[in-house]
């Protein structure tokens, strides 16, 4: 079970409280986690990555285990603590004013 923590705007959009839990068969990577997330919550398609190219939106970041994974290739396996549910994957809106 993979734990994903979404930013407030996306939690409201997906109508979830707290963390999202996902079951993923096979390789656990950003790509497979986002596939599962968007499958479970179709409204999130396009809000984190481009609907067609899969490119991460410029103001979205991926953190886990105190590391910034934003620029890792999307198919890179996620840290083991994320794979086993010990640590959440954080999807974060970049800090900015306004």
């Amino acid at each position, binding site marked *: 079970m993979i734990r994903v923590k979404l*930013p*407030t*705007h*996306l939690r409201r*959009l997906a109508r979830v409280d707290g963390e999202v839990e996902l079951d993923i068969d096979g390789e656990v990577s950003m790509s497979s986690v986002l596939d599962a997330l968007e499958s479970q919550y179709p*409204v999130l398609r*396009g*809000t*984190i990555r481009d*609907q*067609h190219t899969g490119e991460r*939106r*410029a*103001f*979205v970041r991926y953190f886990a285990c105190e590391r910034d994974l934003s620029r890792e290739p999307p198919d890179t396996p996620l840290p083991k603590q994320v794979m086993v549910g010990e640590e959440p994957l954080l999807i974060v*809106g*970049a800090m900015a004013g306004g």
Partner: protein
Amino acid sequence: MSGVRVLVGTRKGAFVLTSDGKRKDWDVSGPHFGGWEVYHVAGSPAEPDRLYASQSTAWFGQLIQRSDDGGKTWEPVGKDFTYEGDAGTHQYYDGSEVPWKFTRVWHLEPSLTDPDTVYAGIEDAGLFRTVDGGQTWQELPGLRAHGSGPQWQPGAGGLCLHTIIQHPTNTDRLTIAISAAGAFRTDDGGRTWQAINRGLKSDGIPDQDAEVGHCVHRIAMHPSRPDVLFMQKHWDVMRSDDAGDNWYEISGDLPTDFGFPIAVHAHEPDIVYVVPITSDSLHYPPEGRLRVYRSRTGGNEWEPLTNGLPQRDCYVNVLRDAMAVDTLDECGVYFGTTGGQVYASPDAGDTWAPIVSNLPSVLSVEVQTLP
């Protein structure tokens, strides 16, 4: 008694303001989509409880929301605005070539007759349409395929298609405007388009009366006289009597002819409203006095409307999509400001009062007249 519903888009959400025909006491609901920019909210003329809203942020992109109960509840619908074919390039501010890229939906224009059909004007400038209530959107690619497309440049707010006018009876005719390309018209349902900018003159482009390149801020039309169009250009207030084929200036005695919105009285097609703004570098009213100007003569002669509007220390702006009229017997006029006020006049502009005074910066105002 009939009433009105005012749909307000702001930098931090949407608000729905409702009142009876007296337009004195108001109910305010919102923010809907709090924290998101809502460029536009529009209702279907065919089914007034069907609303559409454009919701976006730079962080998480674009959503379209739909309500079937007059804004009480909303459901997200389709948000895929993919250009048809190879999108090609347009010009950046410095004239260099940049690829066409979707950024946001500026304006939603529901069909006059079908609640499931809506036109959407987007940035980078393109015209899309849904015929299934917003689930899917298809481009009308003939507009960008107009031969001038690669020469279009953005205005300061982006290369945005912000105005969509439907002919009241001829469904094949649409008139649109793009900052800073100009105005365009189709007479065959969007298959082909012609630039309709003859008579416009603009500083800031090499050829002041070029076919395209004009920063048109807004166009308004009265449905009883569809060939008469009124335009607030970056500078200059303009009029056409032949559906945009030719334009002439009607700025007349305005204190400044820079501004953004323009609107026409619901029952008097020669009564026109503008909000003069000092200049393109000073986006606030002259002398710190917020004045709507009304022409009763279709232009050239203008009178300031000040009763109830702040006449000192006022430095807000009124954006292009932030003025509208209702169709009650005594026409109501509404506008929103970048300072978060929404003003209403229940008597065609003679007197004004704020409906709300402390919203986020207002991007758009639409009005529905309810049975």
